[in-house]
């Protein structure tokens, strides 16, 4: 029988531990709250000779991603970590990393964007990067941070994918929560991710390549469409890797997770740590015999359209919980994507948009209970309410 190793660890430190076990060739990173411990802890591993990594302590996040791009183009396995303003400063380089098809893995301790400056968790940073061509995976808890990082490496480096992957988790809520997680042996991690074989490398000086040329009206469009197809086509590979990881660890991952969705008429859709809170509420309401369920979106890019449609098509009312805003619009990013996906189906749920938890504002079980109450009223009424903000003083 296989022995399972369990440790108590904070989210960021679990990310750093996963980095250590991946033992990448290059980590170029810049500290920012609430992701700082990742680079801090990883620096310790470097200083103590526990990894073979070249650590590049750059002078900004823009340079962090630039150095990651240079290193990945040189054939290295590359990782980094950031949050919030750091991700915003990288924004230009995010598009370049994905378009150059470089399998960089980055954790993002999701945090609000300034102004006003705020260090706490929401998804504004990641949603600002949703069109950057990166694969985006969100983690519900510390175990998932740890597990998602290994899967991210394997997904990113798959020869059919060759795209960067962002592993998100809620700033402070998950990044600074200490949880008991199961960890893998280094050898198990190494055999799961395998040896990285880059398709091209700048260091292959006998076969020189030009990376990042000028592509004008006659070729740019084809490059971008090829890139979009690569991102779309990564969905089955993400699923395959999630299954392989399950076979290895007993923890199976899909692009979405249906929680008590059998016969559910009222469903909440959420991402990251809020899913954990919503599970409690669904359990309690199911105890009372109410037909409620929960849909967790683990992978936001590529958007798992078919999976979501299939999960929601028989539902009466769905409450879509966004932890970021699309100002001037009528719902958050998750709401827009899901309702667009459902538009072409005759039989579809009423969709109610919610925005919650900006700047780390708490979302409690009571808030989610109220959401379910509202969903039931909406079913009776037959139409949704306007965009509703949860837990804000208006």
């Amino acid at each position, binding site marked *: 029988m296989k022995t399972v190793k369990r440790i108590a660890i904070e989210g960021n430190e679990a990310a750093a531990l996963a980095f250590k076990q991946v033992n990448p060739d290059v980590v170029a990173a810049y500290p920012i709250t609430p992701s700082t411990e990742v680079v801090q802890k990883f620096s310790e591993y470097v200083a103590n000779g526990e990894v073979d990594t070249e650590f590049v302590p750059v002078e*900004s996040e823009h340079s962090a991603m630039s150095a*990651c791009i240079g290193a990945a183009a040189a054939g290295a396995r*590359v990782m980094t970590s950031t949050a919030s303003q750091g991700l915003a400063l990288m924004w230009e380089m995010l598009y370049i990393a994905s378009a150059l098809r470089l399998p960089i893995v980055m954790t993002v301790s999701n945090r609000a964007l300034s102004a006003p400056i705020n260090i706490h968790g929401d998804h504004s940073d990641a949603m600002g990067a949703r069109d950057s061509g990166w694969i985006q995976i969100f983690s519900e808890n510390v175990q998932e941070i740890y597990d998602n990082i290994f899967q991210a490496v394997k997904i990113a480096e798959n020869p059919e994918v060759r795209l960067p992957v962002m592993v998100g988790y809620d700033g402070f809520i998950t990044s600074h929560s200490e949880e008991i997680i199961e960890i893998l042996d280094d050898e198990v991690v190494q055999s799961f991710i395998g040896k990285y074989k880059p398709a091209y490398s700048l*260091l*292959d*000086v006998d076969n020189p390549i*030009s*990376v990042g*040329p*000028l592509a004008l009206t006659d070729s740019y469009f084809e490059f971008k469409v090829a890139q979009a197809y690569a991102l779309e086509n990564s969905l089955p590979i993400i699923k395959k890797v999630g299954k392989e990881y399950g076979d290895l660890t007993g923890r199976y991952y899909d692009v979405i997770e249906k929680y008590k969705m059998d016969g559910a008429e009222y469903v909440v859709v959420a991402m990251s740590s809020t899913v954990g809170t919503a599970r409690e509420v669904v359990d309690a309401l199911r105890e009372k015999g109410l037909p409620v369920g929960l849909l967790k979106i683990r992978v936001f890019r590529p958007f798992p359209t078919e999976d979501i449609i299939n999960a929601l098509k028989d539902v009466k009312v769905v409450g879509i919980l966004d932890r970021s805003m699309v100002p001037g619009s009528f719902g958050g990013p998750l709401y827009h994507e899901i309702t667009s996906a459902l538009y072409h189906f005759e039989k579809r749920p009423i969709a109610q948009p919610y925005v919650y938890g900006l700047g780390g504002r708490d979302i409690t079980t009571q808030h989610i209970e109220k959401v379910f109450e509202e969903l039931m009223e909406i079913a009776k009424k037959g139409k949704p309410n306007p965009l509703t903000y949860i837990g804000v003083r208006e």
Partner: protein
Amino acid sequence: MAINLRELALKEERLVSGHRLCAGCAASTIVRMVLNAIDEPVVVANATGCLEVATTIFPFTSWNVPWIHSAFENAAATIAGAEAAYRALKRKGEINKEIRFLSFSGDGGTYDIGLQALSGAVERGHRAVYICYNNEAYMNTGIQRSGATPRGAFTTTSPAGKVIPGKPQKRKNLTEMMVANGAKYVAQASPSHWRDLMEKVKKAVNTDGPAFLNIYSTCPRGWRTPDDSAISIARLAVETGIWHLYEVENGKYKINYKPAKGFKPIEEFLKAQGRFAHLLKPENAHVLEEFKRDLEEEWNRLLRMEEATNK
């Protein structure tokens, strides 16, 4: 170390013809000189700019060496990443070649928008040579002022107006900033003095640490000069004391061009270029005087630094 023209002529070109740089642009001449001065394999990072857009129009490339362009302000960070990858992979025994790392940026990508990335990379000590081909304005976007534009020069964002005759500020001394930043080898060069330039490149790539080269690069479009004058104008810049040839090796200064009879009058350099035409008008004499003072200050400081560091 010695540069031999006969041997140079036999070397395989590392930047080949067919690119779309303007006739008379010194940038490609400089890049060829730089690459031909190096014996080892090289990896090049290129900032967004004339050199980058004109040499890699898909599906063509003029580069016979591995080359990467990612963005404008980050050639130094990009090459630093490649150099870090090289160190990691070499340590693991996956690479056994000696490879040199270079970045090319214009003065926009070096003096201004790329300064932070450059400063960081130099401070961290990556073994790379950061090269500025300095044409004293943002030429790729159409001749806008930069931190390298000299006082009084016309650019499209420092026009020679009735009230403000050209750029009101003096140019930034980036070369000195790189000395202060701790680059182990720092030099200014000009393609007119090709042997000096190539010797400096050799020193730079053989430096075990960061090196910075600031190379004067004529731009016929932006400087309003004939397209057969790139080298002669670059030479005039050296001979009139607009552009000093010097090097700083581990903090020790050496001036490579000291005319025994003093510098030629700066007017000889100015009158050859449309960008300075207004400075020679009597109403702008005060700007010209200020410009001369800037140059004198730079030169006197250089003489003092050479003396102080060679005691």
